[in-house]
């Protein structure tokens, strides 16, 4: 007799056999560790220490990736910059997904006129130019965000160095989240509507469970698949968006650093010192590559249709 297996076990099995996806997973974990745990290591230097005597140095034992034009350690800058880029990618996408999932679930489950109205609103918002709206939102939220930073520092007494790099990202989280939830809302709504028709939902309804409970306990877990896939594939786009905003001077701003800023500065100095472009780009591109392959792998794994082969 065959050993019983669930949807998740099957999916994991398929994923494990997808070499590209597994490699990608390892690469991602490695990068996450480097960027978030790395800076805590004692041998990692400060990313902001200016040392004009040592500007544009080649890689050496002291400075693994060399230094930039102000003598700052490139390796440290790449790690700290990664923190920001990954944080923006994950949190901003998280915000968008959070809003979108709730919105789409309500629309899908409620159906009828409410669904109509909610999705009509989404259709309207789809006709807005994404980049411009993000810029407008970021500009509007910038001031309140810095006031919020001041308030937090006053209330908690944390050092500004710790708080500011995170709180200055808040306009980005809000701006991207406020505009980026549309696609996931549509996806979730479609899934919820499909799942709603299945028999176990009817059973739950006839048992007299509350609508909220049905929605969150029974329907959403079956919708998680597409949500995960979408999130994995949306993060690269968000990280690219952050880099474009930094190029425009609107996202992360110097002296804070992100991969986007490092890459921009590297591209500017490309012909003088190509390493400044190379190292941040490798990290950035690898992360995005890995996320894309992982997302594709997840889609292949979780999609019952491809089980046929």
């Amino acid at each position, binding site marked *: 007799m065959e050993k019983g297996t669930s949807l998740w076990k099957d999916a994991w099995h398929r994923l494990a056999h997808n070499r590209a996806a597994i490699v990608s997973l390892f690469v991602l974990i490695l990068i996450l560790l480097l960027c978030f745990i790395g800076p805590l290591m004692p041998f990692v230097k400060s990313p902001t220490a200016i040392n004009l005597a040592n500007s544009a140095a080649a890689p050496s034992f002291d400075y693994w990736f060399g230094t930039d034009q102000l003598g700052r350690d490139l390796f440290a800058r790449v790690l700290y910059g990664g923190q920001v880029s990954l944080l923006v990618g994950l949190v901003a996408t998280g915000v968008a997904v959070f809003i979108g999932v709730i919105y789409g679930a309500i629309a899908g489950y409620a159906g009828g006129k409410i669904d109509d109205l909610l999705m009509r609103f989404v259709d309207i918002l789809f006709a807005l130019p994404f980049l411009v709206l993000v810029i407008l939102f970021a500009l509007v939220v910038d001031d309140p965000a810095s006031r919020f930073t001041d308030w937090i520092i006053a209330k908690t007494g944390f050092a500004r160095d710790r708080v500011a790099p995170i709180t200055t990202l808040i306009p980005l989280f809000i701006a991207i989240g406020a505009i980026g939830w549309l696609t996931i809302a549509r996806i979730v709504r479609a899934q919820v509507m499909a799942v709603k028709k299945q028999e176990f939902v009817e059973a739950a309804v006839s048992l007299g469970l509350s609508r909220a409970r049905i929605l969150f306990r029974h329907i959403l877990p079956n919708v998680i698949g597409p949500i995960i896939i979408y999130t994995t594939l949306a993060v*690269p786009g968000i990280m690219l968006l952050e880099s474009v905003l930094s190029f425009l001077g609107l996202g992360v701003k110097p002296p804070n650093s992100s991969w986007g800023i490092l890459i921009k500065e590297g591209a500017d100095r490309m012909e003088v010192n190509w390493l400044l472009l190379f190292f941040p780009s490798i990290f950035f591109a690898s992360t995005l590559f890995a996320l*894309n392959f992982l997302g*594709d792998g997840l889609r292949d794994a979780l999609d019952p249709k491809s089980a046929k082969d």
Partner: protein
Amino acid sequence: MIRIIINRIGQGIVTLFVLITLTFFLVRAMPGSPYTEEKAIPAHTLQRMKEYTGLDKPLPVQYFRYIKNLIVNQDLGDVIKKDGVKVSEIIAESFPVSLGLGVMSIGIALMIGIPAGVIAAVKKNTPIDFLCLSGAMVGICLPSFVIGPLLAVFAGLGLKSLNVAGWASPGDWILPAVTLGLINAAYLARLARGGMLDVLSQDYIRTARAKGAPPSRIVIRHALRGGLIPAVAFIGPAFAGMISGSFVIETIFQVPGMGQHFVNAATDREFFLIQGLVLFYGFLIVGANLLADLTQIALNPRLRKS
């Protein structure tokens, strides 16, 4: 049938109306004003300038004046910082350039992305799959402000026949279009691969294989039509994104397109220009959706009933 068309058009108008209103109030929530300048404008002059554009009136008054002007005079307003220039002029001048660039880059994206995705799907899980996809994915993993200068330096400065920037000589569209095209090719490749994989696993494909049809025929004759649907569906949003989001390309390659106006209008606080551009863009999207809907209705009689 007529009722459906009117219904859709009505929805489109409502959409545009909501867009205008949203943008109107969002834009005025930004800190600063169109009159913030490095050398401060004297108070009495500032007052005159505000009176001229109507920005000294309370918000509801401004709003109704704008709507009225829009409907009665088809006037999108003035560009505040440029004396005597109308928003409609800016759009009329820059849109054709963006359109041309967009068409070229979509062409390049299709030429690179579709074959890459199809080959990857056919040779799934082999090294060729990985290679094709990786090659196509360069566009997703590096920002345009890196790909652009790289191409500009190596191809533009390297090849005498290619200019590094500008929009005057016949070949000037190549570098910007290739840069944009590479980025979209990546998405197209992945969508094509995904779509083809879905189709190739279908029963009727199995039947064709069992019947002994040659693989190239299976792919081209049977699988392509269905497998390319997701990729083709992406062309619309890709095109729209290019119109509004090509700021980086335009800056790097000095292209007089519309993307830069979107961004500059926001940083310059050009209220009317932002509103005009969002309205125009929304108009394009709504119009395109309307056309798509109507075409579907025309092709599919079942949709005509409701």
